[in-house]
């Protein structure tokens, strides 16, 4: 079976937008990338898809999602999460280990991969925990986990408090080529906080999480990376000072990389007025000044990656008093339009925006993907950057609907997802452009 994607413009994360390129896919791989019209073969064995006016991009890679399986299948399963992923334009997801049981051993890693392959939507790359049970004491078996298919390690929302343990973890992880991802939070400082500490928490009487609770830990990870020379990836950066610290570290040649999530460049803490729990996440939405700093950090490449921190929660965890509700929002189906808004604003070029969703996370996780080349595995998406639509709760494919963007107008939509040469998403009739 041969697929010809005809008439679209191609976004190369390293070279930019190349107008009018046809992509020919045969089997699992990209056979040819040719200027429009050069490939003119037809026949029953060639499926021609006209994508004129649209962009072909490498399949998006989300290096920070919570798929909830095993243990919390009522919130999300690997099948539903990966379906939401392909709908959003993703061809690979790296899932965090805060499952039940924790992904701290080979059998859980293998289970996740088995469920992913059964679902058949996209590639799932497990992130194992750094320590057993994410308790911060004893390292997991990095070698065996890597061999089983884990690409990174993280204790996620229970960050390793003991600096000696973290130091040894990043040293040992490098030996096994595992990416260490740190959720930076000084838990004693964030304590009972439920939103950013500042003028809005003071106004509406909610316990604050100071920016310093993130920044202290960012500084520690930078110091450890500097000490050991071993890389650390900082998850979901949200504050201006975290970004300054990472910028200085990068200038000094410290091997640190960073990601942020679309909500940190789209929303700020004023959204919390009204106590809507779909704006409750950790780290919390910060100030408008922090939002500007995140945008600047993206545009000058201090922040390498856009990842969603897709965190499905059911109504049971969200239809509650604000301080009792769970932290986190879903993000797989809104990442693309929110990122494209940065292109429209002039914060990022199209090339740079797509790079942060594709090639950059692939490079950090050591996945051979995120670029469109002849001979490469055909993981790609076709997007319509001008498609304008209103996000409706009923259209969300994730099992949980905890999105702050329901009812909002979004611009930019994925229309076709191909994983290993297989069409896994062809858009749907409900999400039509207005």
């Amino acid at each position, binding site marked *: 079976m041969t697929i010809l994607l005809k008439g679209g413009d191609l976004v190369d994360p390293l070279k930019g937008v190349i107008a009018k390129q046809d992509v020919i896919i045969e089997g699992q791989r990209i056979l040819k990338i040719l200027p429009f019209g050069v490939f003119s073969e037809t026949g029953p064995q060639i499926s021609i898809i006209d994508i004129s006016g649209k962009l072909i991009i490498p399949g998006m890679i989300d290096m920070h999602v919570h798929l909830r399986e095993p243990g919390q299948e009522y919130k999300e399963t690997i099948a539903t999460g990966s379906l939401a992923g392909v709908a959003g334009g993703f061809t690979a997801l790296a899932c965090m280990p805060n499952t039940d049981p924790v992904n701290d051993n080979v059998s859980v890693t293998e289970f996740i991969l088995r469920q992913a392959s059964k679902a058949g939507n996209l590639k799932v790359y497990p992130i194992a925990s750094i320590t057993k049970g994410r308790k911060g004491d004893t390292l997991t078996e990095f070698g065996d986990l890597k061999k089983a298919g884990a690409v990174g390690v993280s204790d996620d929302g229970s960050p390793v408090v003991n600096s000696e343990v973290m130091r040894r973890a990043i040293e040992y992880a490098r030996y096994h080529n595992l990416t260490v991802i740190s959720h930076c939070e000084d838990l004693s400082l964030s304590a009972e906080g439920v939103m950013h500490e500042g003028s809005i928490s003071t106004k509406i009487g909610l316990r604050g999480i100071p920016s310093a609770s993130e920044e202290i830990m960012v500084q520690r990870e930078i110091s450890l990376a500097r000490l050991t020379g071993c890389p650390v990836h900082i998850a979901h950066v949200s504050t201006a000072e975290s970004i300054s610290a990472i910028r200085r570290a990068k200038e000094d040649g410290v091997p640190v990389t960073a990601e942020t999530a679309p909500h940190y460049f789209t929303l700020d803490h004023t959204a919390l007025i009204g106590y809507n729990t779909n704006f409750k996440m950790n780290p919390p939405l910060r100030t408008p000044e922090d939002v500007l700093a995140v945008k600047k950090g993206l545009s000058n490449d201090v922040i390498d990656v856009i990842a969603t921190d897709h965190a499905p929660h059911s109504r049971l965890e969200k239809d*509650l008093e604000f*301080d009792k509700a769970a932290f986190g929002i879903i993000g797989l189906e809104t990442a693309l339009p929110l990122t494209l808004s940065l292109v429209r604003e002039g914060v990022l070029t199209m090339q740079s925006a797509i790079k942060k969703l594709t090639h950059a996370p692939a490079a950090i996780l050591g996945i051979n993907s995120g670029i469109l080349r002849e001979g490469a595995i055909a993981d790609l998406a076709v997007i319509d950057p001008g498609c304008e639509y209103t996000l409706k709760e009923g259209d969300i494919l994730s099992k949980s609907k905890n999105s702050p963007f329901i009812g909002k107008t979004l611009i930019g939509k994925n229309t076709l997802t191909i994983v290993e040469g297989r069409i896994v998403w062809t858009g749907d009739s409900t999400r039509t452009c207005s």
Partner: protein
Amino acid sequence: MDGFNHKDLLGMGQLSVTDIELILDTAESMKEISLRDIKKVPTLRGKSVINFFYEPSTRTRTSFELAAKRLSADTVSLSSSGSSLTKGETLLDTARNLQAMHPDLIVLRHSSSGAPHLLASEINAGIINAGDGTNEHPTQALLDLFTIREKKGKIQGLKIAIIGDIEHSRVARSNIIGLTKMGADVTVSGPPTMIPSKAESLGVRVINNPADAIKDKDVIMVLRIQLERQSKILFPTLREYSTYFGINKDILRNAKPDAIVMHPGPINRGVEMSSDVADSPFSVILDQVTNGVAVRMALMYLLIGGHKSDDIA
């Protein structure tokens, strides 16, 4: 009722100056009812009021209950220990069940900031916030405004100091909003550990030292130190708190000679306020309690009694 178009009272922020004046004016006629021999008028006959107190309270609950009863409403009081909340039912489910019984008004006290807002978005009955977490306690602010106006003849232009745990106090937050809205000049005071982040954004001045904060003030509002809530790191000991931040007769000399001293109660005598202040002629603490009933009567009348033309007198 012309001019009072609110289904709920969730916080002071939603009220205009006109709204507040209307509530205070209405409370004046209500206050007279409580001084009668027969303390009851038929205004809210046939209306049902549920007092839903998810947090312990004596003064506020009694005040709301008397207010409703003096207006002839039928009242039911629920506390969390006697309700389904202890059986694992969510707040929204409990509320929906109450809603199914068609009450006209639910008075909610809850430990979570924003809980009444959650309820109000789901429920047809009016909601009065009787204190939500560390957010607001609007009826306390209204009774404080009423008391200040009664004693001082006005609110605009008065200099007011609020002293204590500003960060965790819903009384402080509601009073700051109400007082600044009515044109008072508000200073907050207390140890730095109890002053919220960006306090100035609320439109107040911060002076940590209470002796300095009190200087030339017309009204001194002292907040309760919540022994049950405050951890050991906001201040080291009660003894030290009372030494450096407690209000006693000596410190009070800095205020205007005709200053009044207020407290939302219950007082920890000898901690945030000495007995010689609490029992002094400066103190209007018991007037606040009396006025609380009148203000709550006024509010209930304005929220659910307004569609009838019957005379409240």
